[in-house]
Each structure stands twice: as C-alpha cells, then as structure tokens.
C-alpha cells in the first residue's frame, strides 16, 4: 500500500464525511433534497476501486464509531451501529467494494462510452442499493423480530429515491473519469 | 554542521530525468557549495522537478546525483534525513489535525523518544513565537501561520539543507516578508525555487532553468537580468 493510496483513502473518507456535513441538495423534480453522503459511499468504490474504496468507507465508519458526528445530520457513535441503521452502515463497506470490483473488471479506466455508462449504473445499483439493503434489512428483521419479507416490503418505498442516487453516482463517476481518470485499485 | 565542507554540497553529473515517460531534465551538470542558492525559471522549465531531486522525492533516470555527499542512487533515506522540503501550499504539507502532532511526525520518523519529542516541538515553536499555536487545530490557522508551521515541522528535524518550492507565492505581503527574513536567518544550506526575484538579492548563486536545462548560472544580479531579458515580451 503506497503512500499515495493511503492519501486517496483518507481524502475520500473525508469527502464522505464532508458530504454528510454539507446541506442536502435540492434536485429539480424530486420532493426531498438529496443527502449526498450515500452518493459518496458509492463514489468511493467507483472512483478509487474495490480495495481503496472499501477502505475509505471503513475509515469513515471507524471515525463514526469513535463518536464523531459524521453521519448526515451530525450524528455519530456506537449507537448507530447497534440501532437499526447498523446493517446499512456495514452494507456500505461491502457495497463500495462490489462497485469497484465490477468497474475494475468490466471496463477500462478511462472508458466513458454508452456501455460504460450502463455498467457503472448497474454497479451502483448492485453495490449501492442491493448490497446495502441486504444487511440493512436482515439487521432490522433481527432487531425487531419481524420477518424479512415484511421489512423488505416496508423498505420498497425508498427504492425510487435510491435509483435516482444511483443515476447521479453514475453521472458523477463518468464526469470525474473524463477530467481526472485514476487507475482503480 | 559546517558550511565549509570539502566535498561539494550538490554534485550532479549528466543527470537526466523522465517523469511519466516525459523528459523533464536534460544534461544537468552542477557542482555547488554555496550557503544560499536560488532557482528561477518559467513554469514547466523543470525547476520544481530539480528541487524534488534534492531531497530524494525523485531520483535521476540517468546520470549521477549526490546531495551532501550522499548518492541518490543508493542513499535516498540519508538524503531525506538531511534535506528538508517546504512545499508551496502548506495545506498539502501539514498532515495532522493538530499543530503539535504534525511537528512530531518528523521526530517520530527519526526515532526520537517520546519524552524528548514534546520538548523539541515546544522549542521550535517558541523560536518563532508560535508556542501559543501548539494545540490549535490546523484549519483555524492563517496562511502565514500555516507556512511557518510547515517550516517548523521541517526545521525540528535539524536538516543540513532546506529546499523551498515557491514558499511565498500564496502569501500576502506581510507574511511574505516574514518568511523571507526567516529564510535569510537560517544557518542551513538553502535552495530556494521562486518567482519572487527580490527574495534572491542577497543569495550567493542563482540558477536559471529553461526547458529542462540550466541556461544560466551566475550571481543573482547577472542571472536575474539574463532571465528578465529572456522573459521580456
């Protein structure tokens, strides 16, 4: 792990934190403003790659665990991992890895054609949504003694908003690749 | 630390440097032992790359380069131990969130024991009248204060030579003057890369870089006037 990798990891962890601290962004056509933090998690994987992206998310989570108010809205501490959002936080780590893994293996570093757009979106969907909701739902089901199906059905209402986020993540990834391509590691 | 060493402080012969497969420096030949050496040149002339050779951040692609008697080919660690580097943007140089922690970083690298580290940090800060900043968060400091902290974190390692890469470019006039007088008061060998030509008026020697070569090598007055003529539109 070279010094530059460490720096990328730390800078992106700081980006995820900063995106949680900055006010939510109103987007035309969507009722609620978008908290960019979950975008940041997806982008860690899509821009830095599987290992560095996952580590960036891990560094961020460790700082939240330490009690720093870095979760969107100024929250932090062990209680957020124990409570119902714990599963999602853990899912972020695996999600970033999966997104990076897909991009690293299916498109080349500076590719920005239609196929690349499509693959990046699929990666963000699989890693940023499916792999985050999976542990998230399981954890809630366990915590509340509910059946997984019930929790799953309850969470469907959030999917449209998350799909929009995946699209935005894809667009951001393509834009960053055009301006400042980095090898995915 | 003596300023009259028998071996040249900088000893470069036929040095070429490629960065990202692009040639950046050609045929650099230089022997120097002056106390203060200035480096000027247009952007892209290779002066920043040359500066980074001096503390081993880069190593020659061809040729031999010795700094303070250490050969960059096999003694890079010794070079870094003895040559400090102050970057243009202190925000990229200071890496720990609290001032005292950042200054300690270099001491940790030198394996200075913990009890001595605190004393040395306080000593260097007191020297510049900055002791009150010891426990401050770095992001609360002004640009001038940050540059002084960056310099302190380098000086605390007691290098024999310090290389400055455009240290005053981002500073306002008052801070620029403060840094300038601090630099002139340093006992260490100084190599200063700058666009601020006035800083070099009391220097011993000035090199002008142009397209990767040393185009002029003279007293400050002569080199600067050569440079100004070349840069005239």
């Amino acid at each position, binding site marked *: 792990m070279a*010094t*530059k990798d*460490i*720096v*990328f*990891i*730390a*800078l*992106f*962890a*700081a*980006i995820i*934190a*900063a995106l949680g601290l*900055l*006010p939510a*962004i109103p*987007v035309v056509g969507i009722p609620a403003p*978008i908290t*960019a933090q979950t975008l940041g998690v997806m*982008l860690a994987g899509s821009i830095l790659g599987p290992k560095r992206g996952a580590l960036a998310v891990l*560094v961020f989570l460790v700082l939240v*665990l330490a*009690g*720093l108010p870095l979760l969107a809205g100024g929250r*932090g*501490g*062990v*209680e957020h991992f*124990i*409570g*119902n959002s714990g599963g999602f936080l853990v899912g972020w780590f695996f999600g970033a890895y999966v997104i990076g893994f897909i991009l690293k293996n299916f498109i080349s570093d500076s590719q920005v054609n239609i196929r690349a757009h499509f693959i990046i979106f699929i990666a963000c969907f699989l890693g940023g949504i499916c792999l985050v909701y999976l542990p998230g739902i399981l954890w809630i089901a366990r*915590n*509340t*003694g509910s059946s997984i199906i019930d929790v799953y059905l309850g969470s469907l209402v959030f999917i449209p908003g998350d799909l929009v986020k995946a699209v*935005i993540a894809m667009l*951001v990834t393509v834009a*960053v690749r055009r301006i400042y391509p980095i090898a995915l590691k | 630390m003596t300023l009259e060493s028998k071996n040249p402080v900088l000893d470069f012969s036929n040095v070429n440097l490629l960065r990202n497969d692009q040639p950046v420096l050609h045929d650099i030949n230089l022997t120097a032992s002056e106390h203060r050496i200035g480096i000027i040149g247009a952007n892209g002339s290779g002066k920043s790359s040359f500066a980074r050779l001096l503390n081993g*951040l880069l190593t020659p692609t061809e040729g031999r380069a010795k700094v303070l008697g250490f050969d960059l080919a096999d003694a890079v660690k010794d070079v*870094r*131990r003895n040559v400090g580097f102050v*970057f243009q943007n202190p*925000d*990229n*140089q200071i*890496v*720990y*969130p*609290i001032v005292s*922690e950042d200054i300690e970083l*270099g001491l*940790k*690298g030198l394996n200075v024991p913990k009890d001595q580290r605190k004393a040395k940090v306080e000593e260097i800060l007191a020297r510049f009248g900055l002791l009150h900043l010891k*426990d*401050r*968060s770095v*992001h*609360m400091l002004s640009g001038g204060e940050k540059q002084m902290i960056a310099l302190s974190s*380098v000086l605390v*390692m007691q290098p024999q030579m310090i290389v400055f890469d455009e240290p005053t470019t981002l500073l306002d006039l008052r801070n620029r003057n403060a840094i300038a007088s601090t630099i002139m008061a340093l006992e260490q060998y100084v190599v200063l890369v700058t666009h601020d030509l006035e800083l070099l008026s009391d220097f011993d020697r000035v090199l002008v870089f142009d397209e990767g070569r040393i185009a002029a090598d003279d007293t400050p007055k002569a080199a600067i006037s050569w440079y100004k003529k070349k840069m005239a539109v």
Partner: protein
Amino acid sequence: MVQKEDGGLMDLSFYLPGSSVLHRMPTWSKFFLLISFSIIFYAIEDLRILAVILVAAIALVVYVKVPVRRLKAMFLLPLFMVLLFSIFSAFVNDLNAGLLTFFRLTSLVIMAACVTVTTRIEDFMAFVENLLLPLSFIPFIKPKTVSLTLSLTLRFIPEIFKLGMDIKEAQAARGLNSNPLALIVPLIVLTLKRADDISDAIDARMLD
C-alpha cells in the same frame, strides 16, 4: 490525539469529560460489554427482565450526568427510530413483540450512547490500533499507517467541507444550486488532485 476547546472539528465529538466509573474503564472493556449485552438481551424473552434492564440503562445515563440538551441531540432520532420500528413490529407481529423490541433496542441504544459519551477519541483510536496489532502480519495493516490514515482524514474533513461551501456559493451565483453534479464533481476532482503533493510531503518526513 487531543481534543481542544478552540473550535476544531474534534470538539464536535460527543465525548463529555467526567470521572464516572465508565470514564475510567478501559475502552476495550466497554466495547466488550456492549457486544456481550447485545447478544444477551436478544436471548431474553421475559418482558419484566427487559424492563428492569431498561430502567438500569436510564439510571446509567443519569449517573454519567449527560446534560439534557445533549440527551436530546443524541437520543431523539435513534429513539424515534426505535419507536417506529417497535410499532412496525407490533403491527406486523403482536404487541408483545413490539414491546420486546422497544425495551431491547432502547436499552442498547442508551448504553451505546453512554459508551460514546465516556470514551475519548484518542483512547478509541488507540483501541483500534491495538486491535489491529495481532493482524500486523497482513502487509498493508500497520498500526502507524492506520494512525496516519485516521489523522489525515480528520485533518482534511474541515478543508473539504469548506471547499464544498465555496463551490456551493460559486455554483449558486451561476444558478446551478439544484445540480448535485455541479457540487460533487469539482469537490472530488479538486480534492483528489492534491494527493500527489500530500503524499510527497508525507514521504519527505516519514522516514520509515
């Protein structure tokens, strides 16, 4: 790492100085107990025992002397979420399940918050580094690297936040404030571009 009163980001942590038993307990023991309780509480099906535990948790918060304003900031959202999920559970299963959920989760959330409030960041960082020591045979896990990475992150959070605010301002002036790309793309590019200089600066001073 030190927490100071001058307004740095570190001061926003939830740590409250004090001298309670919890403050003095070593960090690893607090986390160990927390994890153990998480497991134990889920094995308990008796509402009465859980109610007692909940009361004990509340007593703990009182003992640690968390000021009311802090309590609101820390607990309001998590407890609201707990309430929501308990109602969900009661609705989907039965009242008993709902109450079990409520008592368990609330107790755990309160205890977890007590741990947060009584643990200094630097102690937590040391705890993480010590945890990783037995793993240091894995090439990229070195305690010093971990310490540097965490500190580097803390160093840059306020900078990147400020950069974000500056970009927002600039984009608002151009009428682009409902475009997330206009904020996020420059934020990421400008930040990552600094990586070369920062890693040079680290290499110049970190000699081992």
